[in-house]
């Protein structure tokens, strides 16, 4: 948890460099501190280190996919951490799966930047 209430931290997890770049821009523009992880294992490590308030988590990644990461985090006690799952797969089963493993939101790619920023902001504002 951030000491300073106003400065939220967002961890971006995706294996596509360009998408990471775009997300970083968006988050920084919104005034959040960002960090990046490029696969599932790195993500778990980075959560420990960076202690973000919110996670932008890509579902499809090599080795450990986003669903696993989410499940693990929740199991490890990161209940307050907000997680938004991003994925190119838009099937209903996937959405249900995502929410089932504990994601707070599920956004399909390609996403609307405005929509995404709004969601992030809302989630972070709602939290304590």
């Amino acid at each position, binding site marked *: 948890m951030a000491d300073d209430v106003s400065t939220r931290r967002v961890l971006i997890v995706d*294996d*596509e*460099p*360009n*998408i990471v*770049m*775009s*997300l970083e*821009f*968006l988050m920084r*523009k919104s005034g959040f501190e960002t960090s990046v992880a*490029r696969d599932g294992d790195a993500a778990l490590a980075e959560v420990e280190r960076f202690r973000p308030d919110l996670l932008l988590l890509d579902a*499809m990644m*090599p*080795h450990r996919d986003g669903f696993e990461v989410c499940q693990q985090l929740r199991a490890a006690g990161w209940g307050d951490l907000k997680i938004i799952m991003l*994925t*190119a*797969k*838009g*099937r209903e089963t996937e959405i249900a799966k995502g929410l089932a493993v504990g994601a707070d939101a599920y956004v*399909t*790619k*390609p*996403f*609307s*930047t*405005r929509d995404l920023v709004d969601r992030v902001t809302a989630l972070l504002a709602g939290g304590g």
Partner: protein
Amino acid sequence: MWGTWIVVASVAYLGLLFAIAYYGDRRADRGRSIISNGYVYALSLCVYATSWTYYGSVGRAASTGLGFLPIYLGPTVMVALWWLVLRKILRICKQNRITSLSDFVSSRYGNSTLLGGLVTVIAVVGIVPYISLQLKAISTTFNIMRSPEPTAAASAQDVPLLQDTALYVALLLAAFTILFGTRHLDAAERHEGMVAAIAFESVVKLVAFLAIGCYVTFVLFPGLDGLLDQAAARPDLARLFTFEAAGGYTTWLWLTILSMLAILLLPRQWQVTVVENVDERHVKKAMWLFPLYMLLINVFVLPIAVAGLLTFGDGGTDADAFLLALPLAAEQPALALLVFIGGLSAATGMVIVETIALATMVSNSLVMPILLRWGGALVRRQRLGGLILGIRRTTIVLVLLLGFVYFRLAGDALALVSIGLISFAAVAQFAPAILGGLFWKGATRRGAIAGLVAGFAVWFYTLPLPSLVHAGWLSPAFVADGPFGLGILAPYALFGLAGLDTVSHSMLWSMLVNIGLFVCLSLAARPDPAEHFQAAVFVDVLTRPREGADARLWRGTAAVGELQGLLGRFLGREGAREALTAYGARTGADISPGADAHANLVHHVETLLGGAVGSTSARFMVASVVDEEPLGVREVMEILDETSQVLAYSRALEHKSAELEAATAQLREANVRLQELDRLKDDFVSTITHELRTPLTSIRAFAEILLDNPDLDGQQRESYLRVVVEETERLTRLINAVLDLAKLESGGSQWRLETVDVRQLLETSSQATAQLFRDRQVTLELELGEAVPAVKADRDRVVQVVVNLLSNAVKFSNPITGRVRLGLQVEDGAVRVDVQDNGPGIAVADQGIIFEKFRQGGDTDSGRPAGTGLGLPISREIIVHLGGRLWVDSEPGRGATFSFTLPVADERSAAAMGAETEC
């Protein structure tokens, strides 16, 4: 006190008889029979002399002088005929295991259960008076013994039921008989112990009679001469020695005939003469021993009668009781006791054998057939032996009780002899059927039944029925004037035939009717086949060969085991097994349970069973086990034909079914494959979607960023726009690759086959990728060697493959140090191209994966390598389509070599080249 002595003596004597019987049975079980002896056989026949002989003869003699004799003349005459008649009967019964009178009759007339039952009923009804006679004798003499004063015998009906000695006598005799004869079932219905006991009691009664005779004649009176002189002195006694007193010729004739028949046809006589006979040769001895016995036992009858009359005046004492009254009056209680015991002996002997014989008949010929027909469930019980014994015991008790009842009703009214003659006349009804059946093959069942029924009816009407008048049950008018006043039907004078004594009268009419109907009906219709066969068996028995030839021609199926099981239910398992083993040893037949039973064995089993249940029932039971099926040739052919049709049909069915199974299996496989493909398709679509959306995400994101952030600095704007362009290109490549692969896989793409010079093609390709190499600073070496034969291929496609391999090589090579070798050679009739790099190599596990769609080898630190992931799959598709192979050879850390081959175009097709062919 005296009474107690009598009882004790009686019980002791009965106990002795029982002990003898027990001993006899034991010896028989061990195979050392004590009765296999002509003397014993002859003595056993003397059971003919009952208390009738004992007491009744004296009684009869007292009124009719020599009139008692015919009863004994008859058998004596008959004995002379025994060698012919009896031997025949014995032979028949032995061969067919016939064990009772009813069984004999039933068997002779085609195993008619009706006839057997009829004979049984007539026998039971007919013998009841005889039994009551014995009861009367015992109870009367017992009473006399207890109170020796000669008193007029109180009317039997005045004695209260429960104080009637006769009732207890009846019950005691019943119990005794049950013990004697129903301890177990014997297949041949032999009772060796009983025979021994009977022979003994014959001796006892003879000794007793002779004793009292001697005493009376030589002690009480001054010898025979003296006695006769005294008798002659009195006119009423003198006449006893004349013929008229004896009743006239007619009476003598009928009585003689009656007793001739009775000596054979009384159930007890049949039992001891026929059933218990061990050896035919014993008959010879009996032929002189029996008449001798008869003589001895009768020699003192008249003297005792005369002595009695002389001693007691007239009317004071019942003449039947003279035998006892005399010693009692002479103060000789011991002798009287001996006489009493002798009389008891005579009576019990008769009762035991008679009731046992009747019980056998009832169980075998009456109850069992009924049970077999209607009581199916009962018969299916495993141990029928117990059931049969139970039936017999019940019969014994019933018969004795019936005897007692008749005694109460009518016993008082008639003299002993008269009662006895009633029974004689009853069994005489069997004579036409039996004797006729024995010598006349034309005798039929119908004739026998008709004769029996009519004769029995007449007998009943003329003898036992009127006797009830004497008892006070029917009005005397019935006898005097006939029923309803019809004088012509008066029981003692039917159709006006008066003047005869009752027995002769009855015999005349009943025999007339019996024989008449028997002969007429037998002549009227021919015997049916079963009867005919049996008739031959019976009539010709002395001339036919012994067993074995009797087995009928019979086609049936039975397993020896089934027959054994059937036997076991009657003889016990051990008995059945022994019987079959003995048969097998004797004839050499196969008696293992699974073997088919030969017709002779079936016949043998029938005869064995016949001993236990009567031959008719036995045949019935065996038939139920055996399926008798007459088969003609035609039927056999039909069956065979049907069978072959069925076989062919079933073969066709099998074939069809096999085909169906194969088809089902194929369908199942196809279904599985379809499902697999479906899944693959789903995966593919899903993956494609993902792959396409990824670049789109960047494009959209950056486009929106650029739109929403107009004041981005120039460098950022430039780099972001560049990304947009790159991603657009990526997307395009991806779409193209997907479409390409789709077309290749579905066979929808167009191929332009032409003669291609691979060497030249490689050079072109390397030039196309030269820039890539320069960019990454990877060295490309060409080892193209000499000229190689031309191949037939689509040039552009091959270039596509080579370029793909070269770009992969570049991608996965380390910069600066990376070296890629492009090789060309000929191998096994094909042109081979190698692209070798010194990159990180590919793990064996991944070497298959890399040819899968969208899969890319390894994980590089730089993230996902640029590329569609479809290059290799497409390349393989192309090469395979052109007739070659594409594979990889690699070890991690030692680079990778991708190789493909293309078949060399042969001369003929090379000549035909130039034509643009489209696949």
